[in-house]
Structure formats: C-alpha cells, structure tokens
C-alpha cells in the first residue's frame, strides 16, 4: 500500500489552514458536496473576496482542489490530504489505547496498588 507521507512544510500548511474555524467549516462542507466559491460565499457573513482568500489557503495546503465545471470551478475536499492529517490523531489514539490496556491490567491485579 502506498501511503502519502507529508513533509514538515506540508504538515505546517495543513494545520495552519485548519486553524481557522471558517476554513474548517469550508473543508467539512466541500467534503460532502463540492461548491463554487460564490455558493460558499453566500454561507458566510464575509465578502466574496474573503471567502476566496480562505479557499486559496486551503488549496495551497492541498486540503481542497478546484475542478472545472461548465463556466464555474467547483471547490472539492481532498480526501487524501485530510486522511493524512487524521493519521496524527491515530497516533494520539495509540497512546490512549496503551494507557487503557495498562489501566485495565492494574485494576485486574487484586490488592496490588490499592490505596491503604
């Protein structure tokens, strides 16, 4: 299986892009349904130019891409990049799974470790 490995700059761009709530919202939206910048702009209380700027940041981070569609270009979420970002959370999950295993072992040891 080929796994897309992110280099440090890419990771920085992804997380900087996702640090903004509007941009997170845009990503969530275009993952389920692609949309033009004008359609997206109607959803936020900000100018078309501001929304366009947010989309550009997401595009540079590889989180979304634009696909030609008739006269428009539709913004679409890039599943691969988002999946790579999610892998960071996988690693955090591994840490917690290890903790739960050790905690359950500790609880299963009768008498040992209990408070006097």
């Amino acid at each position, binding site marked *: 299986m080929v796994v897309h490995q992110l280099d440090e700059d890419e990771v920085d761009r992804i997380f900087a892009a996702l640090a903004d709530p509007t941009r997170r919202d845009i990503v969530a939206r275009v993952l389920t349904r692609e949309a033009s910048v004008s359609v997206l702009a109607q959803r936020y209380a900000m100018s078309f130019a501001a929304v366009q700027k947010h989309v550009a940041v997401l595009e540079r981070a590889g989180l979304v891409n634009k696909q030609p569609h008739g006269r428009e270009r539709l913004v679409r979420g890039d599943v691969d990049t988002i999946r790579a970002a999610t892998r960071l959370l996988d690693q955090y999950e591994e840490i917690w799974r290890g903790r*739960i295993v050790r905690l359950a072992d*500790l609880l299963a040891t009768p008498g040992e*470790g209990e408070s006097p």
Partner: protein
Amino acid sequence: MSVVSSTQDPEALTFTIVAELAAPPTRVWQVWSDPRQLERWWGPPTWPATFEEHDLVVGGGSRYYMTGPEGEKARGWWRFLALDEPRTLEFEDGFSDVSGEPNPAMPTIRGLVKLEETAGGTRMTVTSHFATVEQMEQLVQMGMVEGMTLAMGQLDQLLASA
C-alpha cells in the same frame, strides 16, 4: 476488550476514548487520584511517568516527568479544573521546562474524564480537547516517541508470553 469505542474529530479538535473497566467507579477513581497508581499506567513501560506532586483539588495540580530509555526526562504539569469524586475529573495537561516550571510556549490539552457505574463495573470516557490544530500537531509529534516506544513495549510483552 477494555476499549469500547474511540472517536477522532479533527474539526472539533477532540479525541474521545470509551473503555469498560471491571471495577466500580470508586476504585477507578483511585487510579487517577493516587499518584503511585497513576504512574503505573500513564506512561508506557519504556517511558514511565513519575508524579512528584499530585494535589487533587480544584485549582491544585501535578508535576510529573517521564523517563526515556536513555535516562532523558520529559516534564509536564496538570491543573485540576473540576472534580466530582468519583464521577468526573477535568484537568489541563501541559509541558514543563527542565526546572519543572510550566512552559507557556508549549501546547496544553484539556482532559475530561467521566466515570459511570455499569453492571460490569465502570464505563470510563476520556475526552481530550486540543486548543488549536497546531497544538494538536505539536503534541502528537511529541507523543510519537511515546507511541513508538509503546509499540515496542507491547512486542516485548508478546515475546515474554510466547
């Protein structure tokens, strides 16, 4: 199987893990409240945690360090935000500098622990809330060391029991 479910929410910046534990909430509370018990599971075998201070009162906190295979120390702190024994425990978890003082430049996680009594013992839900995505990334990168050594520790266990 202790872990019932785990939920990653990259947009809400939270990670939630739910485990069923074969002990009542009062007993599970002890593994959080007693530093000697906490030390036995917080860090992986290759990076064990030592809690030098563990003051379980709201506004109180902990100072701890984790010792790596080469004897290197990673220091951290907790601050308790809310406590309702034996049901909920909310705390902030951050990094410290070499002298053990909280390092404000480093990320913190807000952890919420919920213990619910079940027929078999306790259902424990731990939610980790990251302040920003950059912080989450930073933490996970640091935690990777922990994650990798953890995997090796599990391998050791497998070999020992074979």
